[in-house]
Each structure stands twice: as C-alpha cells, then as structure tokens.
C-alpha cells in the first residue's frame, strides 16, 4: 500500500464518525430542534454496539443495536422537549451527561475486552485494483452508508415533499401547523433519525475505528459534529466537505509531524479547527443563502394552540 493510499484511508476513517453524527443532527436542526445530546447518543451507540457484538459475535447485530440505542436515547430527548416542553439546550446537555454515565455503567463489564471489527468489504477484482481499489471498493460498510445517507438527506431535503415539510416545520412551526402539518410528529421523526445516525457514529468508533469499549471514547467528537452542522449552514454537501476537511487536516498534521516538519505540534493540532472554520466561513459569505437555510424556529418548543 502506498503512503498516499494509507493517508487517504486514515482520513476517511477519521472523518466518517463526524459525518455520520452530523448528518443526523442536520436533519434535526432543519426541523427546528436543537439536540445538544449528540455526544451522549454516540456513547450509547458505541457501548450498545460493542456489547451486542461481543454477546452475539456479529458486528452487524452490534450496528443494529447501536442504531436502536441511539434512537432510544434521542426519543427520551424527544419526549422531554416535544411533549413535556423542557428547554432544549438544557435537555440536550442532560442527555450528554446521561449518555456518558449510563454508557459507562452498561460497559463497565466490557472494558478491556477485545472487540470484533466490522470487516471491510471486498469485491473480487475491483478491490485488488491498484491505487483506487482499496479506497473505492475496500472500505468498511459504514463509510458507504455515511455517503448514501448524506446524498439521501440532500435529496430528500431538496427534492421531496417530506423535505419541504421538514423545512417548513423548522422555519415557522406556527405556519406549518396552520397548514395542517403535524409539527410535533415531524420533529419526533427527525429526532429519531438524528439518534439513529449518532448511534451509528458511536458504532463506528467501537466497531471500526478502535474496536473496543473505553469510557468516554467519543472524546468530544459529538461537539465537533454539532459545530460542523452550524458552520455548514445546514447544507449536506458542505457538511460532508467540512467533515472531510476536518479529518484531512488533522491526519495531514500528524503526517507532517512524523515527517519531522518543524511546526509546533500545538499549532498543527489546532489547524483542523481553524481550517474548517475558515473554509466554511468563506463559503458561507453568501449571506442571503445562509439566512435562507437557517431554521428560524431552531430551539423553540412548539405548543399547538388548542
């Protein structure tokens, strides 16, 4: 394997969990809900994915379990914020804390056990192609799922009636309600979708990235995903670009260090943040577009008038 191939593979691995978590949150925020609990949902996905894999011996069972764990955690957020009308910011933070503690509890008996890695796909002929074989046809399945999800979300939001409804609910829930759309139901569905992809992102960490369970193994990736959503101005294409840019600059920073380039490591470590923010600021200088995409009802609870 050539070094460039190795770098690209590492970049993809570093970026995929960010993309998975962020693409779900993008849909959640487009529907007008701010869920700050990504980190908690990811951790629940990571631990449940690992435990299910360990018990059954099948990473795919783990992936399914992670998705359901993410959905379950997100629905708790949904019930609190959509039905019981709690403050979304506070509830999201609580979900993060809950996920951190609960995942540690669930995983306490599984720390230090060797995990089973979700195998990379292998297509005869294609995967063996020089240079592009492993990159294009030899990734783990979740990488392809993340790309399909991104394209799917972009399509649904831009070209379907469902997408229009989600955006309407996020822009002005009173008008959407007046038009007869079930605001709360739409938001529940979006929250559950966000939970599912956050769970997947967690599974990516515990089944692909570093196949093991370690407490707090997300190490802040949920917050980076959250920031990517805002900086991408809620557009899936930019989001994917931001995630890969972040992963790319991070890995290249490590690579430069290994080469012995005399740049202080602290500077290199902060570069992914700086580069991502700069790039996304530059592309969002089109103010009109940014304003159009910002969900106007973001973070506001909806109480239907009776």
């Amino acid at each position, binding site marked *: 394997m050539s070094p460039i191939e*190795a*770098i690209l593979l590492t970049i993809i*691995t570093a970026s995929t969990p960010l993309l998975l978590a962020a693409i779900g949150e993008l849909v959640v925020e487009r529907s007008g809900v701010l869920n700050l609990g990504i980190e908690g949902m990811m951790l629940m996905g990571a631990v449940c994915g690992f435990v299910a894999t360990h018990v059954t011996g099948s990473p795919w069972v783990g992936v399914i379990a992670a998705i359901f764990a993410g959905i379950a955690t997100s629905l708790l957020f949904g019930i609190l914020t959509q039905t019981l009308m709690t403050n979304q910011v506070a509830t999201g933070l609580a979900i993060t804390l809950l996920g951190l503690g609960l995942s540690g509890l669930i995983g306490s008996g599984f720390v230090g056990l060797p995990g089973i890695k979700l195998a990379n796909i292998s297509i005869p002929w294609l995967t063996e192609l020089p240079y592009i074989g492993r990159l294009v046809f030899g990734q783990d399945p979740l990488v392809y799922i993340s790309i399909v999800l991104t394209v799917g979300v972009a399509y649904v939001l831009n070209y379907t009636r469902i997408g229009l409804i989600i955006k309407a609910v996020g822009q002005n829930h009173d008008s959407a309600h007046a038009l007869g759309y079930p605001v709360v139901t739409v938001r529940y569905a979006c929250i559950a979708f966000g939970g599912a992809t956050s769970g997947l992102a967690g599974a990516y960490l515990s089944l692909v990235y570093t196949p093991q369970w370690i*407490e*707090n193994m997300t190490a802040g990736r949920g*917050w980076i995903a959250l920031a990517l959503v805002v900086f991408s101005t809620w557009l899936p294409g930019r989001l994917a670009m931001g995630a890969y840019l972040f992963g790319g600059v*991070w890995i290249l920073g490590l690579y430069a260090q290994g080469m012995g380039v005399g740049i202080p490591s602290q500077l290199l*470590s902060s570069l992914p943040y700086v580069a991502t923010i700069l790039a996304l600021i530059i592309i969002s200088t089109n103010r009109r577009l940014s304003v159009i995409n910002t969900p106007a009802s973001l973070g506001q609870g909806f109480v239907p008038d009776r």
Partner: protein
Amino acid sequence: MKKLLTAAASIALVSALSISAVAADKLKVGFIYIGPPGDHGWTYQHDVGRKAIDARLGDQVETVFVENVPEGPDAERTITRLARQGAGLIFTTSFGYMDPTLNVAAKFPDVKFEHATGYKRSDNVSTYAARFYEGRYVIGQIAAQVSKTGVAGYIGSFPIPEVVRGINAFLLGAQTINPDFKLKVVWVNSWFDPGREADAAKVLISQGADIITQHTDSTAAVQVAQEQGVNAFGQASDMAAFAPDALLTSIIDNWDDYYVDRTQAVLDGTWESMDTFGGMDSNMVNMGPFINMSEDVKAMAQATTAAITSGELHPFAGPVYKQDGSIGVPAGETLAGFGLAGMDWYVQGVDDQL
C-alpha cells in the same frame, strides 16, 4: 462547552460520593483522575493503587475518586470540592493539576496533597513521580533489536519534561544497539483520545515505523499495531491482552506501595512534604513480561533491567549529546535533579523539534 460539562459531571459525581460517605472518623482519601479508570493505562494503574489502600487500610480509611477531570480551572474546582467534603489526603494524578493543586492547598493548610509528576511543592503538597524513563531505555534497546526498518514511531501526549525524558531515554537505549536508529515523534495533544492515538499509529506505520510506542493512556495504538502486523510496547499498564502478537513488553506503573505508605503516614501523623522519584529499584516502575521476541533479546532486556535496578546503569549517564550536537550531559556525570525533572531538550537523532 465540553469542559463545562465535564466539570458539571465531576461536581455531580462528587456530590453523589459525598452522600455515601460514612463514619466521619475515618480518614478520607481523594483521587483526581484525568481519564476513566477503565482506560487500561495510566488512570487504571492509579485506581489499582487506590484499591490497594482500600485493601490494606480499609478499616481506617475511605477512598473516593473523581474521573475525567480536565486540567485547568475545572480541576481547581473539583479539588476544592473534595477538600471541602473532608478529604484529609488528596492525590492529583496528572501533570496539569500542578497549579490547581497548589492553589487549593494554600486554602486548606490542614489537608495533605500529593501531586503526580509535577515539580512544585509547598508545606502540604508533596510531589511524586516514577522514573518511567528507565523502562523507556529498556524498550528502546528491544526496539532496535527487533525493528527491521530501523524506525520507531513514538506517540506523545504533550511536550512536557516527563514525556521528553521518555523519548530521549528510548532513543539512547536504541542507539546502544543501532547508532543510526531513527525515531519519529507525533504529538496528539491529548492524554486520552483513543481515535487520535489510533490515527497517529496508522500515520507512523505508513511512514515506515515498525515499532510503535506511546506516552498516551489508551490501548488504541497497540491494537492498530496488532492489526497492521508491527510491534508495540504497552504504556503504564500491561496491554498484552490487546495485542497478543504485537506487544513486546509493557512499562507498568506500580503506585500501590507509595499510596499505602503515604496514607499510613497521614494516619500516623508523620506525613511531610517531600519529593519522591521512584524507579525500578523502589518497585514503582516494573517491566511486563517480555514476549514475541527471541531468547537473546529477552536476555538482553532482562540484563538491562537488572543493571538499572541495581543502579549500575543510568540511562542519562554522560556523555549525552543534544539534538544540535552540543553536550547535554558531560562524560562522567549522570543527569539528576532539575536537569532531569525539567528536561526540555532532545538528544541527538530525534526526528522532531520541541
């Protein structure tokens, strides 16, 4: 935001712990951890030490711990909280807790503090550290014997003296076997981030390193080594279970005796502020089993370990040259005191800049 959360979590945890506090006449011993005890590395070994206190002095002492406490202002808050809740002895187990520990200690003159790996003391703050670099010297020699490419990759956390010392000792050890041995250093600027540690390992392997060693806390890097068929060394704790075919040995921190002794000293009223720098001779640094290597290499590693334990061999015995070629340790001298504790230069041959 994350810091705020972790602080909130720590405070919540401390409050929870305080509720469960029992008999007031028992000495309460508090621990502040940088990561989770389940990291199977640095924090794990400190927690093993805490449990040793429970096991040996459990009838007179009660231990509590707060995990995942970030270095900085949050640490100060958490340490204060522990002191307010009646802890008589507090171990703060990461370098970055140095100033927070001193600040809190000034406000609680009756509470004894023990700060790991720092260099600032006061009347009620002791410091303690282990001579991990002794182990690094041994694994450096093993690396140079086992490596086929002659290049090792070193995953660093933060460029602080403790870590720089380890890098230097590793390379000095390796150079005794192969004077041209190369060492690539990658800093991840975190003590505990499994994903980043794994990334760093992958990058180093893609650059030709066939030995991975780390000064970070998780087992992610040794697992990458296992997966990619290169060798690795465990850090802080025996990591053989995570890389059965790749691991050569581990440097194991053993805090048990120190923690029990210091707790006993508080109980006896003989505790004094002091600096402890324990190594292989005082059993604070142990080598794990030597595996996946030939008998010759194993014998060499054992001989070096024995020589360091007996004091016959000192990793920083002169002459040691700095990266720029100037003399770091003159011939006939060994590095000690602040020269060792505050080391801020690389030895010749390190492929990195501080």
